[in-house]
């Protein structure tokens, strides 16, 4: 499984806090319900969106096709030099 522990935890915890914990602290008033729904929906949609992007790249079935100039440039600048 091509997944790393850190990003998954970070984002799940982040959106979990926004969507599950924060609604309890919504200010009392006529807008309490609206704020709770807004927080929950935001957390759910944003987390699912990130998850799809993450899972689509976990096990890539194809790789990027790059011109040799781009390859040389990437190798030099992105810090993984080639032999």
């Amino acid at each position, binding site marked *: *499984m*091509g*997944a*790393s522990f*850190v*990003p998954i935890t970070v*984002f799940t915890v982040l959106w979990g806090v926004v969507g599950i914990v924060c609604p309890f602290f919504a200010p009392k008033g006529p*807008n309490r*319900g*609206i704020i709770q*729904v*807004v927080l929950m*929906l*935001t957390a759910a*949609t*944003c987390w*699912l*969106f*990130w998850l*799809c*992007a*993450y*899972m*689509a*790249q*976990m*096990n*890539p*079935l*194809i*790789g*990027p*096709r*790059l*011109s*040799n100039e*781009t*390859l*040389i440039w*990437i*190798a030099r600048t*992105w*810090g*993984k030099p*080639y*032999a």
Partner: protein
Amino acid sequence: MALCQLFIQPEAAYTSVSELGEAGTVQFRDLNPDVNAFQRKFVNEVRRCDEMERKLRYIEAEVHKDKVHIPAVKDMPRAPNPREIIDLEAHLEKTENEILELSHNAINLKQNYLELTELRHVLEKTEAFFLAQEEIGIDSLTKSLISDETGQQAANRGRLGFVAGVVQRERVPAFERMLWRISRGNVFLRRAELDKPLEDPTSGNEIYKTVFVAFFQGEQLKSRIKKVCTGFHASLYPCPPSNTERQDMVKGVRTRLEDLNMVLNQTRDHRQRVLVSVAKELQSWAIMVRKMKAIYHTLNLFNMDVTQKCLIGECWVPTADLPNVQKALADGSNACGSSIPSFLNCIETDEVPPTFNRTNRFTRGFQTLIDAYGVASYRECNPALYTIITFPFLFAVMFGDLGHGSIMAMFGLWMVVKEVSLGAKKSTNEIWNIFFAGRYIILLMGLFSMYTGIVYNDIFSKSMNIFGSAWYIPYNSTTLEHNQALTLDPKESYVNAPYFIGIDPIWQTADNKIIFLNSYKMKLSIIFGVVHMIFGVCMSVVNYNFFKRRYSIILEFLPQVVFLCLLFLYMVFMMFYKWLAYSTFYDDFAYSQGCAPSVLILFINMMLFSSNVPEAGCKEFMFDGQGLVQRVFVLVSLACIPVMLLGKPLYLLATKDKKHDKPEQSNGNVNQGIEMQEQQTDITEAAPAKKAESHDHEEEEFSEVMIHQAIHTIEYVLSTISHTASYLRLWALSLAHAELSEVLWNMVLAMGLKTDGYIGALKLYVAFCFWALFTLAILVMMEGLSAFLHTLRLHWVEFMSKFYAGQGYIFQPFCFKMILEQEEKDD
């Protein structure tokens, strides 16, 4: 929402309705629908208000003419009570008469002023003529006029008469010609133009005039000349021939002019003072009169009861606002000192009340979006609450670009932060008003677009490498030199853990990025589409539960959701499974990258009960037993269809003896068959309409229920496929946006970045100008509008058709604020 009857004393009626108007919480019903507007009870009062409005309009026109500034009123004044009305009327009448009188006086004075000025000009200019005449002598004049007479005889014949006057400059040539013709050449005209224009008293326009002196001989010519002058509207002035008399006259005229000037100035100042003092109160008077008129129109809706002792009105009141209404009525009675209180009586009714969704300035925009499709039926579940987030989010999926999103967010933020000052400006520009009304929507759309832009890793078509790419280059220099392009194999180039947030930055530079992004975005669209639709179907449970139609939960909701989930949620599951199960790093060849089956092909085969021969070494299915599972799913889903079709009608048939306490609400079918054409639309268009209007408790006929349910079932089943495919527009628009952005960069801005030096700087300056212009106009505005429209369609059709009835009518309370705003807009 409760239907209430108000019993109000006639004396207290005006003040009570005024209080209710300030509160703005009740919607009055017309109790005299067949009474003519001119026969209603309070028609005289309405006429008085109209008369006052006319006076106000006249005064306002005069104020505008003098360009006096009308200060905006800070807080809305209340409607005046009857005593104040009389005062106001008297005051308005007095002011109007005063202004009329001032205007007339001013005109008269100006007329005098004009005449005196013209006289002065005439006197001054004719100085020159007469001087010349005296110098040259009569001889030369008579020589030019009468050639064959001796000078002596001419002198005896008599001196020349003359008339002096002023005529408009445009008419001078025609005037001259006419004089020439009429006198057969025996008139001598001298003229001098006035440099300064004179002010016309009535219209205030400036006119250029010419002074003329016409010399002639004989009385007959004089009368003819006078007639010509009258015809050309030339004003004649008596001009004494001798010099001394002229000088005296000039002096006299000058003094009179100065006096007149002083009087004119004083009149002008007085008028200015009057107008300024009136202008201060003009706005508040206008508002008071409008409120009065509204109150009397409302009172006309009331009915006088049999004993003639009190007025009865009927109104819809939201149940939560009943205490407010009681308080308003009490205030009204107190204000007019009436001892008998008014009271409110709630009555039972079968009529459908209007729909009232309380909104604040944040939620109003979203509620407007939903209401534009159809006002919710009374007490129906309001989808606007969820639209607050799902709308900007689905927009952002289609718009996803950090750069463009931040532009949109800044625009929205500016409008929201400055909303008080921008809202006070009252612009008439339709487009600006629409943008301003949707400022919270725009702000949220921008913020979500920034988030999706980060995940798509797209900022103005470039990607950001913040956390280090997951791909590296495994080749050595010789391989790189000899191959023009290389495709990285995940086995060798991938670190086996994806980029921290979003799409890896390497894809932006790749030639085959479309292949990867297509697969990713299509799956993303279907996932969100299916989730959105399941959410919509689940909303119908809320409705069924509230309206106590629990049987519908089992007979309608359950088969619908099972059908949707077993087929399409299963497809979503297959997508997730494929993302997890197939990898180049797995040892099992059947689960390596070459053997990954197409989810779409699997789905089609599942529905058609067919199968594909897999390639060598690969398996057809993704997990063991998938074939069996799929067959079971399809069969169960097919079994749901007759339940959807027959469940509810048969249940209603079986329970026909029991009384239903709510009239049948037609559930859904607001779609109007946009996607598919029903063959039976003609018959069923009549049936739901009849049902919606019936107020009694009769059940519908079984055939009608059956037909309606058939339509509903066919529509639902077909819509699961078509709406799921419709969500692919999320993929299509985001692809188009990314491509447009990239084309704009490569074709426009890159041109400016390729040259060095001073020429390069200049090129970049020009290229950036065009790039920025096109970014704003095409990518932010046009794409934004396009994505907005598609998101709206997704909500209205794909989401709301699963549960929304939308057959209500909107609650329009009697509210002064809304009436005043409406009248401002009409102005």
